[in-house]
């Protein structure tokens, strides 16, 4: 029987997902055989690119688990956190690097330990603000556009977090009733 955790992560689901992805890849052989090698090359390139980020995420996971107690986390980003929680969510989202899926293990850990849904969502939204690529955004669109876009995104990450929390809680209540 499959084991289901609180977040719905089925033990076998992970394997099935990878199997489904591999099956889709193998199907390209029938529809587009000349694309098989470019896809594999792109895949290997991506793995090499995310490896350093993986190590950074691992280090963060160890540090946070070691340094941040449940009480501290709940105080900073749990139900009791106010502006402090928003600030931490926005800043950490902006400074986090790499693809989002590399951060999922850490986020799941924080979610299990009581981080509020709104802050989790706001963190993820602010990951869209890539300061390390801002110079290229300026190059293509100019200073004014870049400053306005990044500020608007940071500001609107707050209502986005609130909406996510509202709908997550609403659908939880509907499911429970």
């Amino acid at each position, binding site marked *: 029987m499959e084991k289901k955790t609180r*977040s*719905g*992560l*089925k033990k076998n*689901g*992970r*394997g099935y*997902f*990878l199997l*489904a*992805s*591999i099956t*889709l*890849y193998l199907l*390209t052989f029938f529809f587009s055989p000349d*694309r098989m090698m*470019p*896809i*594999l090359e*792109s*895949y290997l390139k*991506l793995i090499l690119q*995310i490896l350093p980020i993986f190590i950074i995420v*691992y280090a963060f*996971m*160890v*540090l946070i*688990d*070691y340094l941040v107690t449940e009480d501290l986390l709940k105080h900073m980003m749990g139900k009791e956190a106010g502006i402090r929680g928003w600030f931490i969510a926005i800043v950490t989202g902006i400074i986090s690097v790499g693809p*989002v*899926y*590399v951060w*999922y*293990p*850490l986020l*799941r*850990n924080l*979610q299990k330990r009581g981080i509020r849904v709104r802050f*989790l*969502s706001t963190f*993820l*939204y602010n990951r*869209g*603000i*890539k300061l390390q690529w801002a110079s290229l*955004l300026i190059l*293509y*669109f100019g200073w004014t*556009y870049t400053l*306005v*876009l990044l500020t*608007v*995104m940071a500001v*609107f990450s707050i209502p*986005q977090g609130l*909406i*996510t929390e509202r*709908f*997550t809680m609403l*659908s939880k209540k509907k499911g429970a009733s």
Partner: protein
Amino acid sequence: MLSRYVDYTRLKEANRKALKGLWNMLPLLLGVLLLVSMMTVLVPRSAYGILFNGNLLWDSIMGSLLGSILTGNPVTSYIIGAGFLDNGISIIAVTSFIAAWTTVGFVQLPVESMVLGKRFALARNVSAFLMSIIVGMVTALIIGVL
């Protein structure tokens, strides 16, 4: 001397938890990377432009939709967005596209659902999708005023 300041038992436990978490995620990560690679190679860039028809609202929604489906380095969205702008597509649509590229992830949605919960993943991605259209409109409005 370090043992005075470092709780090695706790550090060992934190290390074990982190490695276990990452190991459990590995099949999902490898799967999503494969999907991303397939999207990048199989969908030609020349196909993107045909979605836009000049209607502001339609183009904003299409920009957001395209940005939500496509994935990869955000710099790619800047290059494609600049190309759209040169081809006469509105700044609202281009901004929605860029905002959605980095904040919405339909390719990652199955993995996000498995890891963070279906309700959360759906609510977050849908709200981020709608927000990218609003961000596009507000950004264009402010730029227009400045």
